[in-house]
């Protein structure tokens, strides 16, 4: 029991600090964004699991030889109001921390969902009054605004892609198709769920700087994934030009913000204090364009296999450490 909690704690620390930093600096994710996306998810899930698991196992140590036995003993203790003399101060502390962290993570996930949903509902209400249907697609509407802006608003059957007047007049038909393919890829691949999960992860643990790294990486990886879909039908030059025009197009009014393709509205990276990933989106645009320009080959199948194996291990090892001893014993 003791060694399990020790190992899980080491794993939790590794996944909370050095591993995300190394991955955020690596250059290969741009060559295989899907694989990198899986790895980020595995790191976050395994990190949370080992964090909670380590505390749980440590706290239950006096009560049983394994997690399941320990949990049974604890449940009996709580249900029958038995004395907790077997548990020392630190054991109770660890158990409370594990329970609080679990509740905190789940609660933040739900709260973030509720906040995003409320914002989207309001956004959809206004769009219904302001935007007019577009000739470019069934789920596409046009809003009257001078900045070149394109974004998608997810919502199941009510998902919609929004284009601005400014965008329509700035782009050639092929470039517009590239932008639409890009936005539809966001909707088809349900990227808003990833953004939601990682926004909640950051919201829940704001003092852990690597949650910000994870969120930024996920933001830019979904853009790359959507770019790859657009590249299936449109040429690289068209896509680059569309990105460049949208990111640097003529700003007609002084207070117009910077538009760029690939937003999923409302901005789920927006923090309650009002700061957004503005600088991050500049970085994302730059990364996207230089990725398209440098044209490095996709990762080899062997390397991708290795990363996938790492993902499976990351999830399997903590789970097995927590559950298997109980099943065997």
């Amino acid at each position, binding site marked *: 029991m003791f060694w399990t909690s020790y190992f899980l704690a080491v794993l939790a620390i590794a996944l909370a600090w050095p591993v995300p930093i190394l991955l955020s600096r690596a250059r290969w994710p741009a060559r295989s964004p899907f694989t990198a996306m899986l790895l980020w998810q595995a790191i976050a899930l395994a990190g949370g699991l080992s964090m909670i698991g380590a505390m749980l196992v440590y706290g239950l140590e006096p009560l049983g030889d394994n997690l399941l036995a320990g949990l049974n003993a604890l449940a009996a203790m709580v249900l029958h109001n038995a004395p907790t003399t077997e548990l020392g101060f630190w054991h109770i502390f660890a158990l409370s921390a594990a329970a609080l962290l679990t509740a905190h993570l789940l609660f933040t996930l739900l709260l973030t969902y509720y906040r995003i949903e409320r914002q989207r509902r309001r956004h959809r209400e206004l*769009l219904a*009054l*302001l935007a007019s249907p577009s000739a470019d697609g069934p789920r596409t509407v046009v809003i009257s605004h001078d900045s070149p802006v394109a974004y998608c608003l997810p919502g199941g059957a009510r998902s919609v892609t929004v284009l601005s007047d400014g965008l329509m007049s700035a782009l050639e038909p092929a470039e517009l198709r590239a932008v639409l393919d890009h936005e539809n890829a966001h909707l088809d691949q349900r990227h808003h769920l990833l953004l939601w999960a990682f926004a909640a992860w950051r919201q829940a643990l704001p003092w852990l700087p690597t949650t910000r790294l994870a969120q930024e990486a996920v933001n830019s990886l979904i853009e790359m994934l959507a770019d790859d879909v657009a590249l299936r039908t449109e040429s690289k030059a068209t896509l680059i*030009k569309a990105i460049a025009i949208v*990111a640097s197009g003529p*700003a007609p009014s002084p207070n117009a*913000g*910077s538009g760029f393709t690939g937003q999923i509205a409302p901005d789920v990276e927006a923090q309650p204090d009002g700061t957004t990933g503005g600088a991050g989106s500049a*970085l994302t645009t730059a990364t996207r364009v230089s990725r398209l320009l440098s*044209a490095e080959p996709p990762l080899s199948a062997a390397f991708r296999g290795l990363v996938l194996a790492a993902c499976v291990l990351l999830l399997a090892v903590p789970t097995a450490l927590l559950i298997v001893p109980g099943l065997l014993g």
Partner: protein
Amino acid sequence: MASLGELERAVMDLLWAGQEAATANRLRDLLAQSTQAHGGSAGHVGKDLAVTTVLTVLSRLEKKGLVERERGTRPHRYQAVSSREDHTAELMHEVLGSAPDREAVLARFIGSVTESEAETLRKLLGHI
């Protein structure tokens, strides 16, 4: 019969276009006029629109915070809370956030582009 959503849109269009507050009766007349102007059947707003329907639509819009009522007068007069442009700006702000101006985006990109990337970019854009 037009759906409530379509009516909400038509009412907001009238309020945004009008300069001053309007009563539900006035809005009903305007809606009927615009239907006739579109050749009756082509219009999406029903011809025999009841004032109570207009009031329902107005109260829905009021609940959404888009329309406000002047309570001093009878019958109540309604007006849009803010202009169409302000609402559009609100949406755009949500999407773009407080992102830095586009020059920052460009500067960041130019700062990070390598010589070979710049060469490829020149080649690609030259072909268009």
